[in-house]
């Protein structure tokens, strides 16, 4: 009875209003936070926004689950002004800001790209009179809803986490004039823009939100205002502007062919036969390029690396659910349009290459955030590789990866941030033995890391799906195989550093964490664990329907989603439970019968009773044992590989356009 009530209640809400909340509320709260400069008020606003937005996204999700249909929505005009016009004006303003920024930063690239983009925009609006879409500018299908759910929940968790983080951050950096209002303005605006991007169907709207995320990320990256931050922010800006230019170019090309500027319609048209598909390849290549820049694929990886100068919540946001995911989302969206073309294969190779290259470079990094960044690049590469494979199975893998990667990566960044605030270091080597000083954070972090690479966690299962999907394209498969083994290397190394500790009795002391640190961490960790335990329902109830709904609708001829028998039939739950037992039983035995602790083996020269591991060496000196991980600078250092990797990346991009314009 109750359930029915809730169901009908949910059915009765206006999804349009929900979309409004999801897109506009963050922006409005951001402005509010900026205006009201009170600490307490800020905390209140952010938390309330978080709850409301989360609630809204959940409701939308439930609505979608109950209604089982996509939502099309045209927002009512405000005060007689149509939203189309508002967005148009907004976009114009953004481009103006970019031009000004370019001039102010004396950066020819930024200026030129902004100008180019503005020119394209003007041409489109003034010169071409584009055939505006007749459909609603906003659309929410199952995929978009799932994405919004992730963005909203993870984004809001990160925003909450940012509250204590920024307080500590400013305290440590002795920033007296708080820049927090500005920070939260852009943070929240970012989330709103991201939601908008996911839900937009009108390509112009999409482009506007796209630019808005670029601006927000730029502001967030340069937040600390150091020279390095500014420089890196500039780099991020110009690379993303390049993506923007590609996007505008794509839209122009579409417009030139008289295509309606609506995602759904473009996709629908692409299914209209080989000729139609071929005609659309060039704009698709443009969109893919745009997606590559945003998701930092190989020739464009550097902006994401640079972005780690930003405060950690920003990194968490950029890497997990927003920004980079926007890029992949775009490609996922348009994938059916280039199904079964060489373009698709090239996209797969761009992804595969980034997957391997990111993993390889991550091995050589001691900076935790850099490792995370490369791992992001790598994982996104995997997603894009899946998209490039362009089969329903691969799509399933891609969507799963998006979900699980967001959760785990957001969590890892936040944990790294907590460690950074406690130990003032991001260096993996200095995190040695963290398990002794911060057992709780470390445990969570270790779970987070393991959730990136081991069964039965979701990322791995997704990877499995990806591997199984990639047998279609053996050359890619090899890249994926190499990439996934390298992934194991750097994660394991890092975990090893965290756990490496001097002899100690097992104890369960827990460090004190600010609740607003702890709760987000716990939420995401348990999210990763629970979703992994429930991987089968997640797959059958969420991912497969989403893929079916949008992909199959367009490409019904494509092979049916295979039964996924192998992966689905596998008894993941019993398996996970067995492993859990394997973890818990020894702990339980240890509690019951405490084993005795002995020093480590140091060839017989250990000195007992010291807090550090110490041995006697030449001249009877007590020497501390130092162990550092392997980073193989000469093998996997950035310097050794940057050149050729960039070259390969650029070559692949050229190939992308080559195939788009020359072949089907």
């Amino acid at each position, binding site marked *: 009875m109750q359930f029915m009530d809730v169901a009908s209640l949910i059915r009765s809400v206006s999804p349009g209003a929900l979309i409004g909340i999801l897109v506009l509320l963050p922006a409005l709260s951001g402005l509010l936070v900026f205006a009201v400069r009170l600490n307490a008020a800020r905390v209140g606003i952010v938390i309330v926004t978080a709850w409301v937005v989360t609630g809204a996204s959940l409701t939308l999700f439930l609505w979608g689950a109950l209604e089982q249909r996509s939502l099309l929505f045209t927002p009512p005009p405000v005060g007689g002004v149509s939203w189309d016009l508002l967005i148009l004006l907004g976009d114009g303003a953004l481009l103006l800001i970019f031009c000004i920024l370019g001039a102010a930063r004396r950066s020819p690239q930024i200026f030129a790209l902004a100008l180019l983009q503005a020119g394209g925009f003007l041409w489109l609006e003034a010169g071409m009179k584009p055939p505006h879409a007749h459909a609603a500018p906003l659309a929410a299908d199952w995929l978009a809803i799932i994405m919004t759910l992730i963005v909203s929940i993870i984004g809001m968790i990160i925003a909450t986490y940012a509250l204590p983080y920024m307080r500590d951050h400013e305290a440590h950096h002795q920033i007296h004039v708080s820049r927090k209002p500005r920070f939260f303005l852009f943070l929240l605006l970012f989330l709103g823009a991201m939601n908008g991007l996911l839900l937009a169907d009108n390509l112009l709207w999409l482009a506007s939100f796209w630019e808005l995320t670029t601006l927000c990320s730029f502001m967030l990256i340069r937040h600390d205002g150091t020279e390095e931050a500014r420089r890196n922010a500039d780099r991020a800006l110009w690379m993303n502007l390049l993506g923007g230019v590609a996007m505008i170019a794509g839209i122009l090309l579409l417009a030139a062919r008289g295509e309606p500027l609506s995602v759904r319609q473009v996709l629908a048209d692409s299914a209209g036969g080989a000729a139609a598909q071929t005609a659309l390849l060039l704009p698709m290549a443009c969109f893919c390029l745009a997606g590559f820049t945003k998701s930092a694929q190989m020739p464009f990886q550097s902006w994401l690396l640079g972005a780690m100068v930003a405060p950690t919540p920003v990194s968490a946001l950029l890497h997990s659910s927003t920004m980079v995911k926007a890029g992949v989302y775009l490609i996922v969206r348009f994938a059916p349009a280039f199904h079964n073309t060489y373009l698709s294969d090239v996209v797969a190779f761009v992804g595969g290459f980034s997957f391997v290259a990111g993993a390889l470079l991550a091995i050589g990094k*001691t900076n935790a955030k850099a490792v995370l960044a490369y791992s992001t690049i790598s994982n996104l590469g995997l997603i894009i590789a899946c998209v490039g494979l362009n089969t329903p199975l691969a799509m399933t893998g891609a969507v799963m990866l998006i979900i699980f990667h967001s959760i785990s990566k957001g969590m890892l960044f936040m944990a790294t941030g907590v460690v950074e605030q406690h130990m003032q270091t991001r*260096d993996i*080597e*200095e995190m040695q033995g963290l398990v002794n000083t911060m057992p709780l954070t470390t445990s969570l972090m270790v779970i987070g890391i393991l959730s990136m690479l081991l069964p039965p966690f979701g990322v791995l299962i997704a990877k499995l799906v990806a591997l199984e999907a990639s047998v279609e394209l053996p050359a890619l498969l090899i890249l994926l195989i190499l990439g996934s083994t390298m992934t194991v290397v750097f994660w394991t190394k890092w975990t090893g550093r965290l756990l490496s500790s001097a002899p100690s009795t097992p104890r369960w002391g827990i460090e004190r964490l600010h609740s607003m640190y702890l709760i987000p961490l716990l939420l995401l960790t348990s999210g990763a664990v629970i979703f992994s335990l429930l991987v089968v329902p997640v797959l059958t109830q969420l991912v497969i329907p989403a893929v079916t709904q949008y992909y199959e609708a367009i490409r019904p001829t494509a092979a049916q989603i295979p039964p996924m028998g192998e992966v689905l039939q596998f008894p993941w739950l019993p398996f996970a439970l067995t492993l859990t037992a394997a973890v818990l039983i020894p702990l339980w035995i240890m509690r019951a019968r405490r084993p005795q602790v002995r020093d480590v083996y*140091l*060839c*017989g*020269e250990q000195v007992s009773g010291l807090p550090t591991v110490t*041995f*006697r*060496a*030449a*001249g009877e000196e007590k*020497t*501390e*044992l*130092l*162990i*550092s*991980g*392997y*980073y*193989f*600078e000469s093998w996997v250092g950035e310097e050794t590989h940057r050149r050729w990797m960039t070259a390969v990346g650029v070559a692949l991009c050229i190939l992308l356009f080559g195939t788009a314009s020359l072949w089907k």
Partner: protein
Amino acid sequence: MALKTVIPFGPQHPVLPEPIQLKLVMKDEVVQEAIPHIGYVHRGIEKAAEKMDYVQNVFLVERICGICSFLHALCYCEAIEKLLPCEVPPRARYLRVIWGELHRLQSQHLWLGLFADAFGYESLFMEFWRNRERVMDLFEKTAGSRIIISTCCIGGVRRDISDEHLEEILQTLKEVERALDHSIPALLEDYTVRKRIVGKGVLTAEKAVELGAVGPVLRASGIAEDTRMTGYAAYDELDFKPVVETAGDCYARAKVRALECYQGIELIRQAIQRLPDGEIAARPRGRPNGRVVTRVEQPRGELLYMVAANGSQKLERMRVRTPTFANVPPLVAMLPGCEFADVPVITLSIDPCISCTER
């Protein structure tokens, strides 16, 4: 943070038969610095030699090291014999060569085995040590003990070797040689082994002299110095040429030692052939007086004894400088820049004998 790894290597370590510690400073797995820490085997024998009488000292110096014991005794006896003075009968001189070379033979076998073990070639270790047991049996039969044979005494030797035993020695040497023909190529020509030892721990001739390397280490760097060429015992009457290699790496050192096995076998054959009849020991008369330095060639290189006596029953000072002591500085110079996996290989390539080093 500087990526530095500082770890102890030894004293108790399975690849080191004897306790010595190397403090290794590494990056990734490349050694940056290696500081030796010794003193685990220091007993104070030089001092003890001042307390015991000079005849008993023979048994003391023999126990400086169980691998090269006979040659310690030989060098010490040579020193005292010079101081007394006392003429050693020719047969004794030849017997000393025989036992000395047998000692070198077993020591080189021992080293070849341990060296193979240093890069994880267990079966080759077994091969060499199995072969070594043949030599050990010879000791047991001719001298009455496997390790510390106690046959050298001031003025000559304590035991004679009977003709049957000489025959048996020749016979066994033939077997040993045949076995060596099988196992030495397995060491020197094997792909995996060459990968592990060629070009590792290179010591140029220049450096070798400068750092005071001795024995096979010196000869592997291309310097033809073998203390046996000074002609103690009966070496001035035997034909041999020092084994020299020029590469100066672990492979060259292995090769020198391997060839010295053959050289030793050859020398024993010569000695047995030319073995004169007669007395085996002269009775020492008087008390040693004066200072003298003697050197003999050990399996590991040049051993130096300096004895200062003042005409009493006890010595004033006995100084022992063993070959490993001289080879440690080259080792310290060779290690930086090598891989961690090569540390045991390079360390063993000087054939460290710590009990000799520390006395």
